[in-house]
């Protein structure tokens, strides 16, 4: 028991170190305070352990001591240990101690502890958090993170109370997950996000979490808020079977700092292959919801980047809000152009002997390869007939990927030689087209699918059926 307690001290010390990435001598004094915790508080250690489990190793510690303990206690661990735990990893040294503690604790820990123990643990945790914050202040590179931490202190207590109330209500490990999920809707001040499954949260603890989340969200930029609002429902949809449970929730809610625009990138640096592998910095949420949220955020940023490429003149723009404005302006301008051009077309049309229909049908029958995309080019070629230098039109009219090169130049020449009037040019063009059709069709078809699939840059998409 003594060994275990010592281990606990050491473990928690290293926990803080790994969390803060900043080893200071301050830890020892505070740890004494924690060290005096009775055995039930060891379950609190479990919560940290789960936090640590979820974190990728940041420092390298020697694990000799912890290895021995771990191997001894691994068999007695009642709780599921994340599989990614690598004995040679540094950070998990703390985790080892956790496992040690877990081994020493009764196996009934696999279930939630009794309410009293939990509340005590929660109280201790708040102490710990109070204690931990001074560590964060020097360690954090973000002044804002500090501000968030301080803000979270107030939230913590409420969250803790809410938690304990939650645990009172729940008897399973699954329900806190549900409640955690239902925390999501509270985040949304905008009803547009609160649809479908998110609305199904009737929990009374919702209010507490809602306060917590709302306070959190108030600190952040609107874009982050919108993002989180968008992301949280997806988190809710996910991780039902996630191993990280209430302990994570505890630590995450307490130390839950909604990352600002800067932080997502910092946290995103950690490799993410699985929920379990995602590293959460100190002050970052570690529960599955936040992880999913982070993944979601990354998806959104990825799409924003794609949009940045799409919208002309947006390469220099940084920031989601500005980018969003640019996108909105672009789409608005495009729509206005369509309206304007439609009016122009309506004005111009009656004066033109419009014989495109015949031309198109003719080409349709003649191509036979079903290359309607080729037909798309045909009108362009018609235009080319009258606008010889407008080769850009061809390129523009196509998928934009195709290389007009010889095929079209030849067709262009043919058209140039032809007299004005659609019917004449039609025949000439069809003659010219016959030989080039193969190339055109192949190129077209080759281009269309890539064009479509290129839209969504690696995002999990249904894909265009082309």
């Amino acid at each position, binding site marked *: 028991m003594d060994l275990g307690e010592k281990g606990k001290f050491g473990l928690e010390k290293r926990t803080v170190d790994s969390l803060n990435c900043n080893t200071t001598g301050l830890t020892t004094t505070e740890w004494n305070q924690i060290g005096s915790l009775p055995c039930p508080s060891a379950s609190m250690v479990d919560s940290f352990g789960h936090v640590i489990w979820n974190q990728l190793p940041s420092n390298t510690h020697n694990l000799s001591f912890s290895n021995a303990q771990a191997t001894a206690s691994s068999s007695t661990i009642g709780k599921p240990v994340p599989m990614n735990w690598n004995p040679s990893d540094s950070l998990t040294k703390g985790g080892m101690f956790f496992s040690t503690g877990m081994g020493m604790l009764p196996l009934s820990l696999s279930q939630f502890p009794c309410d009293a123990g939990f509340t005590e643990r929660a109280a201790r945790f708040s102490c710990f958090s109070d204690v931990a914050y001074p560590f964060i202040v020097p360690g954090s590179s973000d002044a804002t993170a500090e501000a968030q931490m301080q803000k979270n202190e107030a939230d913590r207590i409420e969250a803790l109370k809410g938690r304990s109330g939650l645990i009172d209500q729940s008897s399973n490990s699954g329900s806190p997950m549900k409640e955690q999920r239902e925390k999501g809707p509270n985040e949304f001040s905008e009803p547009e996000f609160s649809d479908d499954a998110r609305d199904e949260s009737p929990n009374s603890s919702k209010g507490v979490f809602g306060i917590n989340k709302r306070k959190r969200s108030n600190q952040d930029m609107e874009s982050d808020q919108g993002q989180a609002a968008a992301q949280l429902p997806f988190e809710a949809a996910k991780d039902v079977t996630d191993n990280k449970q209430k302990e994570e929730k505890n630590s995450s809610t307490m130390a839950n700092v909604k990352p600002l625009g800067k932080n997502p990138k910092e946290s995103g640096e950690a490799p993410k292959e699985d929920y379990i592998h995602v590293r959460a910095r100190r002050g970052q949420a570690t529960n599955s919801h936040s992880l999913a949220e982070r993944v979601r955020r990354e998806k959104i940023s990825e799409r924003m980047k794609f949009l940045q490429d799409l919208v002309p003149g947006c390469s220099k723009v940084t920031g989601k809000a500005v980018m969003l404005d640019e996108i909105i302006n672009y*789409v608005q301008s495009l729509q206005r152009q*369509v309206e304007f051009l439609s009016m122009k077309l*309506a004005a*111009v049309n009656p004066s033109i002997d419009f014989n495109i229909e015949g031309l198109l049908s003719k080409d349709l029958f003649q191509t036979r390869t079903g290359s309607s995309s080729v037909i*798309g080019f045909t009108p362009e070629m018609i235009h080319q007939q009258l606008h010889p230098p407008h080769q850009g039109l061809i390129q523009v009219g196509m998928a934009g990927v195709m290389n007009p090169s010889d095929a079209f130049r030849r067709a262009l020449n043919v058209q140039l030689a032809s007299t004005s009037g659609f019917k004449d040019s039609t025949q000439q063009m069809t003659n010219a087209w016959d030989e080039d059709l193969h190339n055109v069709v192949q190129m077209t078809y080759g281009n269309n699918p890539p064009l479509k699939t290129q*839209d969504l840059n690696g995002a999990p998409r249904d894909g265009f059926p082309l």
Partner: protein
Amino acid sequence: MQTYHFLRSLTHINLTRPSSPLHRRSRAIRRAAYVSMARAASPRRMWTRAILGRLQLLRRARLLRRRRNYKKKTTISTPHDKLRRLVPGGEEMDFCRLLEETADYAEFLSKQVRIMRSVVDFMEAECRKKEEKV
């Protein structure tokens, strides 16, 4: 593909009702532009479905009676609200999906603008040529 659809609908408009007033024709052309966009794009897209759904709704409304679509003014004030209103079918999408749809929609929209511009240029050139001949 998009060009084909658009030109086809354009000729249809010109042939069926060359005498209708300008604004009505322009409206029809605009609608034809969007429909051709939607037809050319994948039907899995939300905005294509929204556009085609709107078209069917319009058709039914015209058959039965002239009905005005009342736009429900959304009382939400999100940063993405504007974008949602711009992109057809964007009201009930989450932000992530909205961005996807916006990208797709913007691409097809730009294509449509190019097509229309080239058609207009062509028409104008034809007009000028005819005038020169005369």
